[in-house]
């Protein structure tokens, strides 16, 4: 079982997490891994948290991971990162899209958006931070933020021997292929 790797993607409904995990899973399947992916439907469109878990290896049993098990936590929203950090292996990696989406209690003035999340994360784990939205605008399409995050994820996970450009060609509409390939590269460049 030890060869199984675990990816946890977290964020908020509407951020393109499902497509991002689809691209990731597709690449892993093409590379010959057994893959399982888990997501919880239902409340995502109504402003709730969204997570997907992607597990890959020679043979994957459980579709879900537990606390302290993720090799990498990829968060699409700042505050969500902290909520899911417990699922990370203590020596795991964290990739954060620094972007704040206030939740209902914050909008209702019952709570404030937490400050200093990134600093707190950095004290506890190996964190890569960037602003995918701004980077996406930089290449001319703000909707590619999720693919930029995928780029960072595959670089951080050492999955560079998979032909991700071919995966993009297979998973996105033809007219968006070039911009998404560019987005993937921008994401990869964020990780040392």
């Amino acid at each position: 079982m030890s060869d199984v790797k675990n990816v946890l993607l977290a964020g908020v409904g509407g951020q393109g997490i499902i497509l991002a995990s689809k691209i990731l899973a597709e690449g892993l399947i093409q590379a010959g891994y057994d893959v399982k992916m888990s997501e919880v439907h239902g409340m995502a469109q109504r402003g709730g948290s969204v997570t997907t878990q992607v597990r890959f290896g020679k043979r994957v049993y459980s579709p879900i991971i537990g606390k302290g098990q993720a090799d990498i936590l990829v968060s699409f929203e700042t505050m969500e990162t902290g909520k899911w950090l417990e699922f990370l292996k203590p020596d795991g990696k964290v990739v954060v899209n620094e972007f704040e989406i206030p939740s209902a209690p914050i909008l209702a003035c019952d709570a404030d958006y937490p400050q200093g999340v990134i600093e707190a994360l950095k004290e506890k784990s190996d964190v890569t931070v960037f602003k995918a939205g701004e980077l996406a605008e930089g290449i001319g399409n703000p909707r590619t933020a999720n693919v930029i995050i995928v780029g960072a994820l595959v670089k951080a996970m050492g999955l560079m021997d998979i032909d991700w450009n071919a995966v993009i060609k297979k998973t996105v509409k033809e007219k968006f292929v070039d911009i998404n390939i560019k987005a993937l590269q921008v994401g990869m460049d964020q990780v040392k």
Partner: protein
Amino acid sequence: MKKFMTGNEAVARGAFEAGVTYASAYPGTPSTEILENMIEYKDDLTAEWASNEKVAMETAIGASVAGARTLAAMKHVGVNVAADPLFTWGYTGVTGGFVLVSADDPGCHSSQNEQDNRYYAKFAKIVCIEPSDSQECKDFVKDAYEISEKFDVPVLYRMTTRTCHSKGLVELGERKEVPMVPYVKQPLKYVAAPATARILHPVVEDKLKRLEDFSNETHLNRVEMNDTKIGIVTAGVAYEYAKEVFGDTASYLKVGFSFPMPMAKIKDFASKVDTLYVIEELEPFMEEQMKAAGIKCIGKELIPNIGELNPDIVSKALLNEERPTVSIADDKKVNRPPTLCTGCPHRGFFYALAKKKKVMVTGDIGCYTLGASAPLNSIDSVICMGGSISMAHGASQAFKKNDVEQKVVSVIGDSTFFHTGVNSLMTVAYNNSNTVHCILDNRITGMTGHQENPGTGFKLQGEASKQVDIPKLVEAVGIEHVVTVDPLNLKEVDDALEAAFAFEGPSVIITRWPCALKKFSEQDIAEFDLSPRQYKVDADACKGCKVCIKTGCPSLSFDSATKKAIIDPITCIGCSVCAQSCPFDAIGKVVK
């Protein structure tokens, strides 16, 4: 060819490959996508939404009696609705193979309870089959049809949220056409009158004995012998969790056919291992039967019957092992509960309703259940599909008989009204209670992700259909005071509520506006003004009173530095509820 599929997609594929020609369902998480994925196979099979699970079950029963391989799908609580036909269907048996998919929801991800529907199989004296991953979801459906026809028995196909919604690689097969069994009258089989039922009952008991023999032989119940210090009997997704934790260090009896249980096989397995664990999600369904059969085993003493199971729970319970974790302080985390969407037509209605004092509000199941949450706090109770109208009636009659002055309002959605609310409304009109019933018609089944229903004008596989005319239907059952309002117009809703309160006898308020996330039909575009709009706060006029914030719109926030409300221009779709709520006219339409 291998395809990456959810369990739900795989069940649909399995039904297709098994030669199913009719399927029916009522949407309910986590089962909904089974029928939605049958759209793909529309050349080969008819798949339909029914108005509720009982109807879905009965239409599927009709198709089986007619001789076709048939599937019905529903969430766990839907089987409660369908239980009446289910129990007698267990007596009569089938003609065309019959599979009832019950999608249980351990952990209540999107449900009002976490009942374990394997008990229905035992209760109704039918077969239970439990797949554990996407491949099995597809393959076992095909086995289920063979078993159903061979033993003349309906199959309860028990899935759970994780088997339904997790994806795995599935090896696809070809469709096998299965001709219909020619129809012949069989009154002694299918007319379940008392005389027939008395004959059928011993037949069923005998069938269960033969099915238990089969259960001991079938490949669906599989032994994996490894080290014999620990033996594990497990079923469904719990098998994956057990393998995750114990790997090849334990032996397994993986139960795929869980009722009738393979008791001889389990006894033999138990005799070969030192310690026997039963790892199953939710209730001790297998464990109780094993203990009753005299098999010594450990199960729910260590593994909780509450909530969704996972590998961590198994590991902690049986090995006392936990992984190290890292975390940051709780003050860096704020909850993210679901809310009514920006532009949701329910918001205006609930905002107006929340202003009414001394009102008991019974709610129902759908997006509008969120009207119970802060800041709207409008709904007092939610029990089950269609329950709002009947509960309001009973409450009102009790208040009246006991001389308590209390207004009672029920709130129900369009699809839920068609589901079972309409039956309740007949009871209301018949017994004439002084109640107000609000049918929130957002032109779609919203919560489960936009399924067509008898009011929308379309069927599951895309064809146009008749539409239920809600006002006419309501009048036809005997309600005299009926109005239809725009829920985004606060004054209109308020006036309608006041008029209904003033009316002696039952009244109905229908709100009619499409769900903000809906893919609008041509009819929607013609009927409603859905042109893009946007609203903006005039910072000079805003007094920082936060009244607009009480609408709970996700596009509205309050800047504590400037003490002004702000509307997010990207997400606002201009429903105008906040503008109507503002006491200082500080929110206005953006003129472009």
